[in-house]
């Protein structure tokens, strides 16, 4: 179940290739280093305030695990509760279906434009493009999404999609593009973030006041009451959720929670993990429609688009617990250096490396499970304890397996592994190979390092220096220096060394 969508960007190069370009962009690296460094410190300060932070994480992980194991039950309860409260629930198996539903709902209102709250689900399905094809203009209202939209750019971070842009670039984009979309930026616009935020406020205010239809995502939905939750900072969310007559919310099926009361733990974990605040400025909660307050028509679109396929994998399904806080991006040494675009997906960073290949199938994002050093910082930061390294390793095995199935001949890597297995299983063969390797390596080395090699070694050696092996292997040294009989000798040698 997958259609034309943005989970992976068509034509995007594989991660290693894209990363090479990103690494060469020094301005990008400086922007990312500053931004992720700031947010890391803030996150640590506010999480350290709660002495039971680990228990909160455990609880959240347990609630998510439980919900996913009974997902059909909770989705049906949610549908019932939302309907009872005056909302309408729609189901979309894939991106194309979701886009069709939303387009038809907008058309039915007779409107030609919609205002949008930042939403990963609608990014994922490429909703803006689908609406544009139907002659409907979608205005992004989150500041970072606005920067991306005006710059005809792609998001590079889950929370702050324009994190790759510095303030002076943003100023240029605003001055150049705002006039094309509505109220132009003032001539006196500076690159002070306060000034830039003010320009966005003025530019979008007229759109909020005339909007009749809004499209949002959802952070959570409580199955028992039908309450939907949007967590935000700027107030653009409140504008979209309150002022228009029609509200259409597109939500991944994994966002459901059993009960309203479960929100307590997530509303403690999410702001602290994502923006490093004790609480984000605005959280909106609504249950169906309310007479005389807010939209009179509410539609909830429940989106699969690869989620049930992910759910079927007992190791990989934990990725569906993600609450899109982006803490894993901010602590990841790989993300900090390459930025989000290199991942070629709306879901970048460590969570993207486990989510994207599962949503679209590993064969369509085969480089992503390898876009990690497996250092585990993401697992430590994750508020719902997704064991990202575990899923990465699991998916690496699937990539290798898929590769093996799709080829008649084994890959060079498979041949190398086979040879390694033969060598490592025989002490005699290992000793012989080690002696040869020392000789060969010393011939190839320069200043104690082996650089790029030709032929079959190029793919390994092209991106890393290898230190020259010592003249004598550990095994050879052992044999040369040990004394006495085997068992006694070992004890005696160890004893001497310890003294």
């Amino acid at each position, binding site marked *: 179940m997958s259609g034309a969508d943005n989970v992976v960007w068509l034509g995007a190069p594989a991660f290693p290739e894209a990363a090479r370009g990103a690494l060469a962009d020094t301005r990008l690296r400086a922007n990312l280093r500053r931004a992720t460094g700031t947010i890391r410190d803030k996150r640590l300060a506010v999480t350290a305030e709660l002495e039971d932070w680990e228990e909160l994480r455990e609880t959240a992980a347990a609630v998510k695990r439980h919900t996913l194991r009974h997902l059909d039950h909770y989705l049906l309860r949610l549908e019932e509760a939302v309907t009872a409260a005056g909302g309408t629930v729609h189901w979309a198996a894939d991106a194309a279906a979701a886009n069709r539903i939303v387009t038809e709902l907008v058309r039915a209102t007779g409107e030609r434009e919609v205002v949008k709250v930042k939403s990963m689900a609608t990014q994922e399905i490429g909703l803006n493009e689908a609406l544009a094809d139907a002659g409907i203009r979608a205005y992004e209202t989150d500041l970072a999404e606005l920067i991306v939209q005006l710059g005809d750019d792609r998001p590079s971070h889950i929370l702050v999609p324009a994190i790759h842009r510095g303030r002076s670039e943003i100023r240029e984009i605003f001055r150049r593009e705002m006039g094309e979309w509505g109220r132009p930026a003032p001539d006196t616009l500076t690159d002070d*973030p306060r000034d*830039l935020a003010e320009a966005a406020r003025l530019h979008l205010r007229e759109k909020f006041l005339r909007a009749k239809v809004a499209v949002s995502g959802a952070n959570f939905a409580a199955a028992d009451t039908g309450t939907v939750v949007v967590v935000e900072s*700027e*107030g653009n969310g409140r504008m979209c959720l309150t002022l228009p007559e029609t509200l259409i919310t597109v939500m991944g099926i994994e966002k459901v929670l059993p009960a309203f009361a479960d929100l*307590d733990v997530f509303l403690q974990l999410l702001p602290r993990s994502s923006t490093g*605040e004790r609480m984000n400025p605005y959280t909106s909660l609504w*249950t169906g429609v309310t007479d005389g307050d807010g939209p009179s028509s509410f539609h909830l679109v429940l989106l699969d688009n690869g989620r*049930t*396929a992910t759910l079927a994998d007992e190791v990989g399904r934990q990725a569906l617990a993600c609450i899109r806080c982006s803490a894993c991006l901010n602590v990841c040494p790989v993300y900090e250096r390459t930025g989000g675009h290199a991942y070629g997906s709306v879901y970048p960073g460590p969570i993207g490396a486990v989510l994207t290949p599962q949503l679209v199938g590993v064969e369509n994002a085969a480089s992503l499970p390898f876009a990690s050093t497996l250092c585990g910082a993401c697992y430590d930061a994750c508020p719902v304890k997704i064991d990202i390294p575990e899923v990465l390793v699991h998916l690496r095995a699937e990539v290798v397996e898929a590769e093996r199935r799709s080829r008649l001949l084994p890959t060079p890597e498979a041949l190398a592994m086979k040879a390694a297995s033969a060598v490592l299983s025989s002490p005699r063969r290992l000793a012989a190979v080690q002696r040869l390797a020392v000789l060969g390596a010393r011939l190839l080395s320069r200043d104690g390092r082996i650089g790029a090699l030709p032929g079959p070694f190029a793919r390994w050696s092209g991106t890393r220096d290898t230190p020259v092996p010592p003249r004598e292997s550990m095994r050879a040294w052992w044999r040369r220096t040990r004394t006495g009989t085997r068992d006694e000798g070992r004890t005696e040698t160890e004893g001497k060394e310890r003294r």
Partner: protein
Amino acid sequence: MSDREAVLGAVRVALAGVPDSESPDDAPSRGPGADHAGPDVVGLFAERAAEYRAVVVRVAAADAAAAVGRALARTGARSVVVPPGFPADLLPEGSWTWLADAPPLTVGRLDTADAVVTTVAVGIAVTGTVALDHGPGQGRRALTLLPDQHVCVIRADRIAPDVPEALGLLDPYRPLTLVSGPSATSDIELDRVEGVHGPRILDIVVIEDERPH
């Protein structure tokens, strides 16, 4: 087959390995969370709300209306939205233009109003949050969204220590808005800037019975 059946069917196939003995009713058990608030709940609320750039004052009941007046005077607000059910004794004496929401004010009129005064459903000390349920004294959601200054009045006994207690006091069937400081963004270089689309100025007047006049 409808998408509804397709999605639910795929979920059930994916969960075939979950034993029948495991029921949705066996939700994970949860003990009470740790106390993050400490003994001085009101003091913590005032401190935390101020950290997010809300202007917080603590007053005796008799001084509450004057405190509202001082907040409005500080910004020079002239036209002020007053939601239905807002206690008349909390409105200060003075030459303000009070805008009632009956009949409902248009968004254009709300957009040009300088300020709005409201009560609060529940406060949250640990996070410095005010929760609105948009009932009497608070008004429909648009009222607290479009004017640039929001002055809210909260009685000290409506301040809950932390998020779980506060959620327990709120009615999920009402529209709810949790407000923690004025609107803000971290979208430019992850640096926090106060004041984007929602009210850029948030005043909180805390009424304490035992506070001397």
